[in-house]
Every structure is written in structure tokens, then in C-alpha cells.
């Protein structure tokens, strides 16, 4: 059996582009169609591969300068252009820059780790997030199925975190991972949003619940943190703040009606 319409619809569903009515129809179909479920899982794998492997580029500083200069003068750009042929020199410059940025980033780390205790946990969480983005570190259990991810933690942790899939809202579950944060093993749940990765760290609460979520910005990443009566949550991503807050809201809602 082939479902060409469902394939495009499933993609739109994973992209968060379906209307609520279509989402319901599709989820009903998904629940009973093994083929479409398999299709969805393959697409999620593709998505994870894209997140890990396809690079974005930075505009060369010289190009940026030329454009800015043109805007300033309002006339034609200076005609000095990059050499036509690709040379080692033009290649090495960005690589050297990347290398020096890496050194700065690592230097920044060791400084950050000397912060006061309250901030140390945030540093810890961010370090785990960054480490998880390195090839092969994202997930221990690769599954978009919450009923596969949740039991995977059994026997690995002394608590059982709730796992939800928000694929219908454009935040598909990509998998889970065991991590070590704040001196204890914790559950890390991995979600995707387009090319962005969202890490959710969950562990049993040791303090009272918070009303709203606490926001931090570190090194280009947004971090949201809150505590429910049962659990402490940390959500980290390079996703835009508005979308990350939308995601956090979904998570809080799901958790409150559990």
C-alpha cells in the first residue's frame, strides 16, 4: 500500500505546517498504519543526519565590509573582488579564524567554570548541551517513540522521567541520553526543531517549585529552567527564544496534566 498524499502530509506534520484538523486525521491514521509510522521514523533519522552533517557558512568578513561600504557610499561597490580561483590562502583564512575562535571558546569555558556555585549548574548544563552536539554524542537511544525512550531509562536512573513527543507541534522527539549534571546521573531528552537541537535535562527536584521559568543566555544559547513539585527542568538550545519558550510551555502543560 502506498500513501503519496500521506507522505507529503507527514512531512508537513513533522514541519509543524499542518492545520489542527489535519493533524488529528493524520495522527489517527498513524496510530494504525505501520508503514506510515516507519516512514515517519526514517524521516526523523534523516532529520538527525541533517542536523549533524550539513554545514552552514559564514559570509567572509571582506564581503561584509564591501557591502557595508556600498551602502554607505550608495554607489557601486568597489570592484575589488575575491580571486576567481580557489586558493589555499582563501581557505586557510576562515580555518585559522575558526581555530582561533575555538581557542577563545575553550578559554571562555575554563573561566566560566570558575563562576559562583549557583551559576556552576548552568555552566554544567550548557557544557552537557555543547558536548551532546559533537558527532555521536547526541542520543543513547534513538527513537521518536516516547514509549521506547521512557522505559530505556529504567534501571539506568533511580527515577522515571516523563517523555512526550511534540511532533504534531513541530518539535519531534529525537531520542534520549544518560548524562551527568550537578554531580548526579540525569535524563537528557532530545528534541528537534528544523535544524536546531533542544536538550531537556530532567532530575528530581531538591527545592520547591518555581512559578515561571528562569531565563539565561550563554554563548549564543538560550537556557530555560524551572522546577515543578517533582522535577527540575533545564531546557537548552540555539533556537530563537520565542520558539524555545513555546516549547517549554508545551512541556509544562504536558507535565501538569500528567
Amino acid at each position, binding site marked *: 500500500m502506498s500513501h503519496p498524499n500521506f*507522505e*507529503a502530509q507527514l*512531512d*508537513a506534520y513533522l*514541519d509543524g*505546517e499542518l492545520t489542527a484538523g489535519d493533524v488529528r486525521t493524520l495522527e489517527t491514521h498513524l496510530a494504525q498504519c505501520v508503514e506510515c509510522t516507519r516512514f515517519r521514523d*526514517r*524521516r526523523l533519522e*534523516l*532529520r538527525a*543526519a*541533517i542536523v*549533524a*552533517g*550539513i*554545514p*552552514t*557558512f*559564514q*559570509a*567572509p568578513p571582506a*564581503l*561584509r565590509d*564591501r*557591502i*557595508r561600504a*556600498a*551602502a*554607505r557610499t*550608495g554607489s*557601486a*561597490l568597489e570592484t575589488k*573582488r*575575491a*580571486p*576567481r*580561483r*580557489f586558493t589555499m590562502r*582563501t*581557505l586557510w583564512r576562515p*580555518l585559522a579564524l*575558526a581555530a582561533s575562535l575555538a581557542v577563545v571558546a575553550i578559554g571562555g569555558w575554563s573561566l566560566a567554570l570558575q563562576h559562583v556555585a549557583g551559576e556552576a549548574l548552568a555552566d554544567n548544563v550548557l557544557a552537557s548541551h555543547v558536548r551532546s552536539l559533537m*558527532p555521536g554524542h547526541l542520543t543513547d537511544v534513538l527513537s521518536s517513540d516516547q514509549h521506547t525512550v521512557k522505559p530505556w531509562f529504567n534501571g539506568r536512573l533511580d527515577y522515571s522521567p516523563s517523555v512526550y513527543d511534540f511532533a504534531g507541534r513541530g518539535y519531534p522527539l529525537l531520542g534520549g541520553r544518560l548524562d551527568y549534571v550537578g554531580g548526579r546521573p540525569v535524563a537528557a531528552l532530545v528534541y528537534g526543531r*528544523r*535544524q*536546531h537541537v533542544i536538550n531537556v535535562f530532567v532530575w528530581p527536584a531538591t527545592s520547591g517549585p518555581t512559578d515561571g521559568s528562569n531565563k539565561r543566555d550563554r554563548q549564543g544559547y538560550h537556557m530555560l529552567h524551572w522546577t515543578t513539585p517533582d522535577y527540575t527542568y533545564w531546557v537548552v538550545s540555539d533556537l530563537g527564544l520565542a520558539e524555545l519558550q513555546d516549547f517549554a510551555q508545551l512541556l509544562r502543560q504536558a507535565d501538569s496534566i500528567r
Partner: protein
Amino acid sequence: MESSALARFEAVVLPHLDAAYTLARYLMRNASDADDVVQDACLRALKYFDGFRGEAGTSARAWLLTIVRNTAHTWRERHRPEALAVEFDEREHSEAIAERDPEAKETLGRALERLAPEFREVIVLRELQGLSYKEIGDVTGVPVGTVMSRLSRARARLQEALREEEVR
């Protein structure tokens, strides 16, 4: 250009320069052509910037990417009619890809390169630029329904290409 318009151009358009450059890199498939295309596109953007008011539903990012895409197409026809036949510059791409995942360069870079330009374009706009279907439709000049089916076919082709790269 007046200084207020200049400030607006710098604030509204220039933040999307990396996105513009990334799209151009994938459309032109080499760094120096991408450089030229982005430069030309920004000149055009400057010229028509007065016409861009940031109406509801038109993001500056999608607007700039539309110009980059059109410039890339014109540029290829005018300067490099043979460009479609030109071999993918693997050396260059593999360097960029290697920074992220040395194994992925073997598969993803080549798989993406093998896609037809219209498919490569929607993958880049969606997966790398995070544009909505509506915005992709605006950039590529096709209805949202076409974006949906084209993106779905593009992913299917990418999956096939990936599988073939993996068994190589």
C-alpha cells in the same frame, strides 16, 4: 543613501548576510561565485530597499533570500552557462563539512550535491534557513502546495542518495 535608510538597511538586511551566503554557496557550489552572487544581490537589495517596507508576512530574511536566489539563477545563465555541468568542488565543500562531522562529509555533502537544483534549494531553505512553507513559496515563486510536495520529494531523493552513498 540617506543615513536613516542606511541604518535601516544595516539593521534589517545585514543580519541575514550569513543566510544569504549559505544559500548562495549551495546554489553556486563554490565560494568565489557565491561571493559574487551575494555581492550583486545586496546591491540589488540596496537599490530596491525603499520598496521593501517589511509588510506583514514578508520577513527581511525571505526577501533577501529571494533576491539571492534570483541573482544566482541570472548569474548562472549569464556567466556560467556550463555551470550546471560543472563538477561539484568537493575539496572545498569537504573542508567546511569536516568541521562538523568527518563521517557526514562522505555521505551528506555528496548526497545533497546529487539532488536537482530545485530540490537542493528547498532542502537548504527549510533545513538550514528554517523558512516556513509560505516563505519558501515566496522565495521560489511557487504555491504552498507545490512547496509541500517538492520538499517531500526532495527528502525522499536525499534519503535515496544517502543510502546509495552509504553502500559505496
